[in-house]
Each structure stands twice: as C-alpha cells, then as structure tokens.
C-alpha cells in the first residue's frame, strides 16, 4: 500500500497566513506569534460546540430510543436546549461541602478537564489542519489521558463522602485497567504505519480510499479500541464510577454549578475526542471513501489548484467530523440500549479477555507485517 500513497500538501492555512502578514511587512517572529493562538482558539471553540451538539444528540436519540419526543420548545427541534442546560449550570450556586477539602475539591474537576482539552493538540482535520504535528502523536494522547485518574481520585477524596471516594477509586481502577489493551491496540496501528504521528497514520491509510482504511486490516484492534475508549469515557455500559443506583453519582455526588459542569464538559469532550481518534486510527481520518486525487483527476483538475485545495480541505474536515459523529451516534445508542456491567465483570473483561486478545492481535500484526510487508506496512 505504501507505494500508492500520494501526499499532497493540501490546505496549509499557517503558510498562507504567514505569507499574508509578510506582505504587510510584519516580521516573521511576530507573524508566528500572531498565528499561534488562532488554531488553539478555533479548536477550543469547536470542541465546546461539539459538546453542545453532543448533548442535543444525546437527548434526542435517547428520546427516540424510549419513544419520547425529547426537547422540543427551545429552538427548532430543541437545538437550543443544550445552551439552556449550560446557562442553568453557570448560574447555579457553587457549593463546597462543609467538611470538604476546598483546594482539592476545586482542583479535581480542572485536572479532569485540562488533559482532555490538551489532547486535541494531535487531532488532525487535514494534512496541515491540526494545532501541532508532534512526533509522539497518539502516545501523547495516551500519556495525557493517564493524568485524568488523578483528578478523579482528588475529587473523590476531597468531597468527604463515601460514595464519592468509592466512585473515584472505581474510576481510577477502570481507567488504569483499560489503558493497557487500549495502548496495545494503538501499538498495532503504530507498527503498521511506522510512526506515532496522527498525520502519518492517516496518510498511510489514504492509498485506495475506503479499502485502505485500517479497519479492514485491524478488525480485532478496532473492536478492542472502541470498547476501551467507551470504558475510558465512562459511558454506559461502563459507567460504574457514577452508577446512580449504587453510588448516587460517584465522584460527582457533591459537585454543583460550574464545577459539575466541568465534569460534564470533560466527559463529552472526551467522547468526541475518542470518536475522532477512532476515525483517525481506523477509519481513514479526513480521507474520502474515494481518493480525492483520483476524483480530481477524473474531473481534469490539478490537486494543487487553489479552489480544489479549498474544496478537498473542507471535504476532509466534513469527513472527519461525519465519521466522528457517526461513532458518537453509535455510542449514544449503546448507552440507551445496553445494561450496565458489574465491577467484577468489568475488570474480568479488561484483564482476562481484552488484554490477552490485544496481545495476540499485536503479535499477529507483527507476524503479518513480516510476512506481507506490502499490505501491512513494511
């Protein structure tokens, strides 16, 4: 497959922006400094908007699953409902329980949210449409997501509530045990694409459109990764840390107002981020099912023409978001149809099933890579 890979530079907004400022006589360093906050703010805003869309989807789909109508009056089809929810949380009183540890209680939600937002650094929407193409790529995401349990433990401990503490401990245990099969399935992908960088991983899948996506070469890895990602996001069927029938709301029990909203925001941003990473690792990222180079050739256009670049760039963003939200839809459907597993079943699944299967998958991938270097990345 490597021989087919055609890497076109595509839309490079940074270079265009720097050139533009250079024409106005702004120095290189200052232009770079002016550029830096732009992609960060864009990604931050789109992440938050993504959460709003997500909340609306969750409400509407859950209503459809349960044959209700769901939010209806706030805007057309209730699309303003998430905004109303957000405003409500913003105006609620910020309560710190009397015997709680105020400092840790405040720091906990922040520590849960910040690593999730930092991980957006490596999510690519196009060849050059990401904040930073860091070499360690997906490894950075895995490392950052391992900080989250500390925030959960912190908020669980400082709430001075037995349900919170139990929820926090459960969350940390769950997150640690599912990180290992997750990392192993990512390792299989990395082995095939010879790089940790998310951009390289997508480029390696861009040869023959839909047929070169990693999901065909890594079906087992895809399933393992999806299960682990759901467990890391604490989505049902794995939402044990906040199992309301057993633990009231787990580590979130004592939280109200904006601090609770930070948890809420964190979990939804994490869901969107995970869906994006599944699409990057297994579903070809920004790639169209039919290679755009081939389509452009059919229409007799050069891929490097400015208009074609803009169209392919937008198509890439649309494809990434579309794939991610299809996965989000699937996750929401799972949440409202599947019952919750018990804690022992959860740990059994993680340690006794997913871990060995992920190890075998890694070994098989290595063997296939040696046997068929053409198809599995030599």
């Amino acid at each position, binding site marked *: 497959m490597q021989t087919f890979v055609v890497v076109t530079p595509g839309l490079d907004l940074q270079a265009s922006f720097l050139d533009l400022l250079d024409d106005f006589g702004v120095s290189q*360093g200052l232009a770079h400094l002016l550029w830096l906050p732009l992609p960060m703010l864009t990604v931050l805003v789109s992440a938050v908007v993504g959460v709003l869309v997500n909340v609306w989807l969750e409400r509407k789909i859950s209503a459809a699953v349960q044959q209700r109508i769901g939010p209806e009056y706030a805007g057309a089809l209730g699309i303003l409902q998430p905004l109303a929810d957000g405003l409500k949380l913003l105006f609620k009183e910020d309560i710190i329980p009397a015997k709680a540890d105020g400092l840790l209680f405040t720091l906990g939600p922040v520590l849960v949210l910040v690593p999730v937002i930092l991980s957006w650094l490596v999510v690519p929407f196009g060849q050059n449409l990401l904040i930073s193409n860091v070499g*360690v790529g997906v490894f950075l995401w895995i490392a950052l997501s391992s900080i989250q*349990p*500390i925030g959960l433990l912190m908020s669980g401990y400082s709430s001075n509530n037995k349900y919170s503490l139990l929820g926090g*401990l459960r969350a940390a245990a769950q997150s*640690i045990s599912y990180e290992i099969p997750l990392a192993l399935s990512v390792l299989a992908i990395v082995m095939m694409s010879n790089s940790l960088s998310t951009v390289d991983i997508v480029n390696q899948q861009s040869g023959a459109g839909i047929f070169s996506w990693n999901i065909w070469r890594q079906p087992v890895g895809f399933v393992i990764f999806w299960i682990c990602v759901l467990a890391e996001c604490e989505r049902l069927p794995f939402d044990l840390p906040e199992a309301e029938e057993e633990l009231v709301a787990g580590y979130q029990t004592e939280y109200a107002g904006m601090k609770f909203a930070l948890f809420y925001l964190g979990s939804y941003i994490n869901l969107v981020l995970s869906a994006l990473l599944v699409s990057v690792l297994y579903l070809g990222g920004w790639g169209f099912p039919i290679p755009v180079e081939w389509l452009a050739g059919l229409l007799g256009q050069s891929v490097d023409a400015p208009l074609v670049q803009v169209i392919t760039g937008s198509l890439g963003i649309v494809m990434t978001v579309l794939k991610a939200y299809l996965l989000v839809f699937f996750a929401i459907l799972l949440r409202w149809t599947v019952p919750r597993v018990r804690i022992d079943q959860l740990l059994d699944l993680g340690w006794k099933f997913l871990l060995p299967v992920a190890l075998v998958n890694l070994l098989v991938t290595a063997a296939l890579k040696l046997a068929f270097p053409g198809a599995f990345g030599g």
Partner: protein
Amino acid sequence: MTIASTTELICFLVLSVTLVAGSLGVVLLPNIVYSAFLLGGVFLSVAGLYLLLNASFVAAAQVLVYVGAVNVLILFAIMLVNKKETLAAIPGLLLRRVLSGAVCAGLFALLLRVSFTTDWALPGPTPVGEEATIRIGEHLFSDYLLPFELASVLLLMAMIGAIVLARRDVFSSDVITGEPVDQGLIEKARTPLLLEKPALEKTS
C-alpha cells in the same frame, strides 16, 4: 534575545520553581495526601523539563509511567489504607529531625560542589528531536538489552509476589505462623501474620 529563547527561559524558571517548591512540599507537608498529589505535580514538571530539552518521547513516557501509574498507585494505597489513628509519639523526635536535616544538607552541599566543579560541555550535544524514539528503541535492543531484560524479570517477580499475597488461599497453612488458613476468606481483615498466638489456645 529572540522570542523563542525568552519563552524557553520563562518556561525553565517556572518549571524549576514548581519542581523545587513541589518537592519541598512533598517532604515537609504533614498531610500525606497533599504530599502524594504534590508528587504528581513534581513528576509533571520533570516531564516539562524533558520537553524543554527536546525529548518529547521521554516526557510522554515520564507522564505515562510516573504520573499515570506510580502516582496513582501511591494515591490508591493511601486512600485504601487511610486509617484515622493517632500515632504514638516517637522519642527524641527533634534530634531525629535535626540529624536527617543535617544528612540532607550534607548531600545538598556535595551536589552543589559537584555541579560547580564539573566542566559542563556548553552547549551540549545537539538534540535528536523526533528521531529520539527510534534511537531509544535501538539502544534498548542492543547495548541496553541486559538491563531491559533484568527490569522485566524484576517486574515479573513483583507481579508473582503480588498474586501470591493477594491469593493467600492457595496455601493450606500460614507461611509464618503455621496456622490453618481460613479458605472462605481471600482477603482477611486481620491476618495473624505477625501477631502472637491468641491466649485462648493456652487455656484450652
């Protein structure tokens, strides 16, 4: 001075201050939970220093291993064994503190002397940057193969030990006291591992 070098200097200063203050907090704070959380902060600022040295892979590994595994393990241990009990006063506490303070000060003086007398090669070797991942892999499988394998054997031993400790029901009698083990309980509240035999047996 360019923008890049100024930013680097500011980052270095902030990271060093957090590192030193955090480590002092880990040692000096009386609340062990605060110490454990501060330890996480110290590990994170060390990762930041690695990033400043262009070693992004090492930085990510530092976060994954030390913050994500070691620190979480420490927190787990503290939170699961958080017994509210008043510790008995240790005799000569002041003397002990003075002695350990003196030992630490001596070590610090030694380190200072070493750092001032060594001829540091400035500027250091050029950083390999993104190539570092490949370089580390090559080293691990060539000249550092033996330490790598020894570390894995050590981890295997620790794992087997943990399994043996957790599943004490595999033995029919306690290893140390020789008492028959209650097979119904895997995790016992008060194991008679290091306790004297109860006085009941003498009377019967």
